[in-house]
């Protein structure tokens, strides 16, 4: 029987899952993803995790709870640094330790450390260690790794073209890579935030779909080319230390400076440490660009659909009126 490898459907899932999935399948292992975030997962997470933790970490605990009894291995690598420059949030760095010392009954946790600053081949090595669990053939691992990398590239391309992670993953499965052009909307918003918040339909209270329903086209972080992010200058003397935070903030600066969107929404989570700074910098920046309305939305354990919808509607209305006023002037 194929070994089952559990993967929590949160955090890095949205960015790297197709790669891990391909890799495991090539080696004859079976990836088992936790269920979609739900009330139950959230409640489990709230119960297992520390009350003072941020919502995404609580959700992560919920996903571990959901999947841990169905698997032989739990894959939670300790991802420290992937770009040689910025690191991930300290809570990411401590993830394997937090769950190992919280849950009593866990399958074997694969928590290889990945830090490309120490070792240029850290990613390959991590996959090698993972692959070793299922085969002894280095060649086979290498082959699978390369295939996985190709799939990941394709996946990121689909994301860049505006597909949601879910849609992109489906597309990869159907092998139909043609993308139908985005319908033209009257308004275009940048919705910036960490992938595991923005693309988790449950915890984001479906914000993206709601905006689309209100006739707003949305752009997310994944659609901003990496070199644009890399080359965007902020007026802050130090880059944010944390990878996702750095990207979100630079993307925000990019949109404010270019003025290519009609509004910017920052989607952030209750109790997020890095975002307390990112959000403030965005707010200060937005003061210099009054023609691009900015709103920050904080989600928490109790975010209600209704309240969120009203706020979004009001914001969209405001942007619409503003745009009409400019057009008429």
């Amino acid at each position, binding site marked *: 029987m194929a070994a089952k490898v559990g993967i929590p459907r949160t955090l890095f899932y949205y960015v790297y899952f197709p790669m891990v999935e391909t890799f495991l399948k090539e080696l004859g292992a079976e990836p088992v993803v936790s269920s979609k975030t739900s009330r139950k997962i959230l409640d489990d997470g709230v119960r297992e*995790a*520390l009350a*003072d*933790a*941020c919502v995404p*970490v609580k959700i992560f605990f919920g996903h571990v709870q959901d999947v841990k009894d169905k698997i032989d291995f739990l894959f939670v690598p*300790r991802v*420290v640094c992937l770009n040689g420059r910025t*690191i991930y*949030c*300290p*809570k990411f*760095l*401590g993830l394997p*330790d*937090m769950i190992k*010392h*919280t849950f009593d009954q866990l399958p074997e946790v694969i928590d290889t*450390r990945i830090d490309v600053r120490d070792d240029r081949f850290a990613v390959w090595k991590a996959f090698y260690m993972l692959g070793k669990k299922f085969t002894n053939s280095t060649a086979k691992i290498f082959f699978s790794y390369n295939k996985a990398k190709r799939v990941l590239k394709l996946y990121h391309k689909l994301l860049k073209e505006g597909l949601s992670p879910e849609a992109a993953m489906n597309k990869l499965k159907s092998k139909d890579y043609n993308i139908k052009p985005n319908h033209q909307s009257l308004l275009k918003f940048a919705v910036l935030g960490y992938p595991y918040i923005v693309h988790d339909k449950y915890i984001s209270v479906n914000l993206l779909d709601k905006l689309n329903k209100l006739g707003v086209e949305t752009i997310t972080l994944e659609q901003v080319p990496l070199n644009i992010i890399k080359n965007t200058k902020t007026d*802050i*003397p*130090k880059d*944010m*230390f*944390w990878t996702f935070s750095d990207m979100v903030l630079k993307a925000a600066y990019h949109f404010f400076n270019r003025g290519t969107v009609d509004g910017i929404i920052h989607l952030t989570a*209750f*109790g*997020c*440490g*890095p*975002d*307390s*700074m990112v*959000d*403030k*910098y965005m707010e*200060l920046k937005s*003061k210099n660009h009054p023609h691009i309305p900015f709103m920050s939305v904080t989600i928490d354990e109790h975010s209600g659909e209704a309240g969120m919808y009203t706020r979004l509607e009001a914001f969209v209305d405001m942007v619409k009126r503003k745009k009409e006023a400019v057009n008429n002037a």
Partner: protein
Amino acid sequence: MRKVTFPHMGHSYIAFKMLMEDMGNEVILPPRPSKKTLDLGVKYAPEFACLPYKILLGTYLQTAEMGMDTIVTSGGAGPCRAGHYAHLHKAILHDLGYNVDLVCFEAPKKHPIDFYRKVQKLNSAKLSVLSIIEAIKRGWHKLKALDHMEKLSHKIRPRELKRGTTSKVYKMTQLWLDEARTHKEIEEAEAEGIKAFNNIPQDPNREVLKVGLVGEIYVLLEPASNLEIEETLGHMGVEVERSMFLTGWTRDNLGKGTEELISVTDAAKPYLPELIGGHGRDTIGHTVLYAKRKFDGVIQLAPFTCIPEIVARTILPKVSIIHDIPVLTFFLDEQTGKAGMVTRLEAFVDLLRRKKQNTKLNQAAALS
């Protein structure tokens, strides 16, 4: 003349004040953080900023009102938020119309030229490089003496006959050290201080508990931010040992050199092998070491939303069970009240006393 201020972090302001004055600056002394400081900080800081951030912002706003035009502080490369504090502080102050200058020191080893430039920026008295080094040495000397006094207060307070004597003596020694300006004067003040502490009438028979304090640096070092937890514990008959001093007091004075730090990392390794920024790993490591040194308990102090301490706190219960040492955590924010804290401390100290008695009884039983 530059009018400088800096964070109020325990008694360190006494040493920094001398250093800044020696370099020819006017010092706008940061007031001891009060409700007003915190209110100001809370009003203008992001909601989920950590407590130290809010207190510092409040401090800067208060001193800006008093004419402060330069903030002197340190940066750091993270991976925690403190490394970004200063620049966001400046951005917020500018947004509020205070045009303050910021001199933010980064680790001199990594950025020697930048360090030199910033020192020169503050060198209003146009001192020679040698004189600056001398001034820094004097400041360091003073800081060490101050730490020594604090350390003595931790030891003696739980044993004092008359409640409050130690705190009074401690304040007095700070005043003496504040006035001392040369190495000789600092030495003398320190010697006087030691004498004064030793003269405090003590109760030799009192059963004193030993508790280790671990956690995030600012709330550990600034009593106003931790609601004077050390004093409160002292009055409950608890001797505290703090895991952190600005001068690395414990490290230098236990005579083990840097080995201690290594062993903290080692002690933390089975639980948290990764450096997660802030002092999260030290929190774990020190807890293990306190347990090994047979302390009665450990208290973790952490700012609300503090990232590394949250990670540490998640792991601590396991450490507490494995090493059989009770651990109590306080997440501090603007809503933490002293009364609530005292109640929780009393319950904790009770538990420690009972545990200690039980152990003794068991040992006696085993012997008979």
